[in-house]
C-alpha cells in the first residue's frame, strides 16, 4: 500500500509535482500514467525517499520509506534512470545491495535467473543493452521479495517478448497480493497491464480510475478490418453513425460499429475477413485528450525546460 497525500515538489519557481493525493492498493497493478515531464519519476523518487518533498507526505506500508528498518524487504524499485555502477558486474551489484540487508547470495542467484540474466551476470553492467539493464533493475526490485513494487517505465527498451514478460510478471506479482505501481507514458501498454490507473499531467492529478471505466469513457471506437473484398464490405457497413475509411488496399478503419457487428455483417455478406481488430488507438486518444493541456513541452514550444526528466 502506497499512500501519497498532498505531495508537492518545487524546483525554484517550477512546480514538478503539485499537491498529488492518491492511494495505490495491493493485489492489483496500478498504472501511473502521464506524458513525459508530468512528474511521474519525481513522485516515485519522493515515495522512495530519494527526493525530499517540498510539501506533503508519501508512505509505503504505513510509514515513510526512510523509516523502514529493512526497506528492500518492504519496497522494490526500478528507477527510470540507470542506478547501477557501469564497471561492476550485475552479480556483484546485486550482492552488494543484498549485503546491506543480510539477504543471502542464494536469493541473488534466484533473481538473476528469474529475469534471465544468468549468462551475463558476471559481465560489466556497463556493457548491457537497455533491455538487459531493465532486467537487472527488475532483479534488483525483487531482491528483497517485497510486498510493494515500484517500477518506473519498466518496458522501456524491451523487445516485444520482454514487454510481454514484464506484463505477465507484474500481473503475477499483483496476483500474489503485492502492491504493484508502474509508470508509463504509453496508455496502450497500461491498458493491457493495469487494472487501475492514476493519470497525471504537469504534476497534477487528472484521473484516478479503473482501466475499464477509462475504456468505457473513451468516446471513439475504431475497428481495423482486412478483407480481400474490402469495397463490398465497405458498402455493406455504411450507415448513419458509421464512418469507414480505407487505410490501404484491403484494410478498412471502421468507427461506430463493434468488431462483432462487423464480423456478423461480413458473414451475412459471405465476405472473407482476414483481420478484425478493435483499435486501442481510441484509448490512446482519450489519454491524449485528457492530458493535452497538461503536456509540458509541446513540440512548438520554445520555452527553456528546467529540471530533469519526468
Amino acid at each position, binding site marked *: 500500500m502506497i499512500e501519497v497525500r498532498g505531495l508537492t515538489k518545487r524546483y525554484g519557481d517550477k512546480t514538478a509535482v503539485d499537491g498529488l493525493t492518491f492511494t495505490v492498493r495491493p493485489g492489483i497493478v496500478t498504472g501511473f500514467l502521464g506524458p513525459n515531464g508530468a512528474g511521474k519519476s519525481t513522485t516515485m523518487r519522493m515515495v*522512495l525517499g530519494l527526493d525530499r518533498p517540498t510539501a506533503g507526505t508519501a508512505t509505503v506500508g504505513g510509514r515513510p520509506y526512510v523509516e523502514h528498518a*529493512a526497506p528492500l524487504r518492504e519496497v522494490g524499485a526500478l528507477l527510470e534512470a540507470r542506478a547501477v555502477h557501469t564497471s*561492476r558486474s550485475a552479480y556483484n551489484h546485486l550482492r552488494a545491495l543484498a549485503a*546491506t540487508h543480510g539477504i543471502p547470495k542464494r536469493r541473488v542467484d534466484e533473481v538473476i535467473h528469474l529475469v*534471465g540474466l544468468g*549468462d*551475463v551476470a558476471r559481465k560489466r553492467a556497463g556493457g548491457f543493452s537497455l533491455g538487459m539493464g531493465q532486467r537487472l533493475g527488475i532483479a534488483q526490485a525483487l531482491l528483497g521479495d517485497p510486498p510493494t513494487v515500484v517500477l518506473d517505465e519498466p518496458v522501456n527498451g524491451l523487445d516485444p517478448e520482454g514487454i510481454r514478460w514484464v506484463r505477465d510478471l507484474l500481473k503475477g506479482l499483483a496476483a500474489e497480493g503485492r502492491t504493484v505501481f508502474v509508470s508509463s507514458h504509453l496508455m496502450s501498454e497500461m491498458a493491457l497491464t493495469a487494472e487501475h490507473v492514476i493519470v497525471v499531467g504537469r504534476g497534477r492529478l487528472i484521473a484516478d480510475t479503473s482501466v475499464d471505466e477509462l475504456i468505457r469513457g473513451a468516446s471513439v471506437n475504431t475497428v481495423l478490418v482486412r478483407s480481400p473484398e474490402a469495397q463490398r464490405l465497405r458498402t455493406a457497413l455504411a450507415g448513419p453513425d458509421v464512418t469507414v475509411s480505407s487505410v490501404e488496399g484491403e484494410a478498412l478503419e471502421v468507427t461506430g460499429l463493434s468488431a462483432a457487428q462487423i464480423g456478423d455483417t461480413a458473414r451475412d455478406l459471405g465476405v472473407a475477413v482476414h483481420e478484425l481488430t478493435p483499435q486501442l488507438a481510441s484509448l490512446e486518444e482519450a489519454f491524449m485528450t485528457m492530458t493535452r493541456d497538461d503536456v509540458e513541452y509541446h513540440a512548438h514550444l520554445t520555452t527553456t525546460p528546467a529540471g530533469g526528466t519526468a
Partner: protein
Amino acid sequence: MSNTLTAPTAGAAAPRSAAPVDGQRVTFLRTTKAEWIKLVSLRSSWITFAAAVVAIIGLGALVSYVTNTHWAHMNPQEQAHFDPVSRSLGGVELAQLAIGVLGVLVVTGEYATGMIRSSLMAVPRRLPVLGAKLLVFSACTFVLSLVSAFVAFLLGQQLLGTHGTTLSAPHVLRAVIGVALYLTVVGALAVGLGFVLRSTAGGIATFVGLLLVLPGVGRLLPDTWQPHVLPYLPSNAGAGVFAVQPDTGMLSTWTGYAVFCAWALAALVLGAVVLKRRDA
C-alpha cells in the same frame, strides 16, 4: 539472452515472509560489508591501490639506490642535511595522488553512474553509507600504506648501504607508521570532497588544489603572512607525521597532524550535510 527467459508464474518471486522477522534488515555492519563488496568488485580500486603501493615502494627504492650510488658526487652541505628516512619514503607524495583520486572516485563514481540511488534506496538513512564507505576505504588505505611504508623503509635502507638508518633510531618508527596515518587522512579528505562535490572532475580538482597547489600559491603571499597561513594548509600540516623532523616553520608533528585531521573532518561533515539534505 532472450532465449534464456523463463515464463514468470505466480510465486515466481518466491514465497514471501514477513519482512524484518527473519533478521534481514539494515545494520551498520552489513552496510560496511556492502561497501567492501563495492570497493573490491571494481577494477579501478585494485589498479589505483596498486599504483599507490608501487609509488611508495618503487620510488622509495629508486631514490635510495640513486642516492647511494651518487653519494660521492653530493656536496658536503647536501650530505649534512641528508635524511635516510625521507629518501626511502619519497614515494608518499606521489601515492597521495592515487589515494586521493580513488577516495573521490569511490563516491563520485556512484553519482556519475546513478549507483548512489540504489545505495540510498538500500540504506535510506544515508549517513551510514558515508560512514561505511569511509571506514572501508580508510581501513584498506591504512593497511596497504602501512605495509608499503615498512617495505619501502627497509628496502630503502638496504639500498642506502652504509648511509642507512634503523627503525630503532629516534622518531623513525613513528615516521614510518606516519605514512599510513597521513595517507589514511588524505583518503578521508578525498571521500569527504566526493560527497560535497558529487562530480569526479570537481572532486579531483579540488583535492589536487587543496593538497598540491595551495602550498605553492601560499608561497606567493607576503613574507609576514606566510607563517600564519602555510603551516595550516592541509599537506603542510600533515606532512610532519611521516618525517623524522618537521620542516622548519611548520607545526610540530602532532599539532600539524591534528590540523590535517580537522581539514578532513570539515570535508566529511560538509559532505554529510550535503548527503542528508540534498536530493539524490
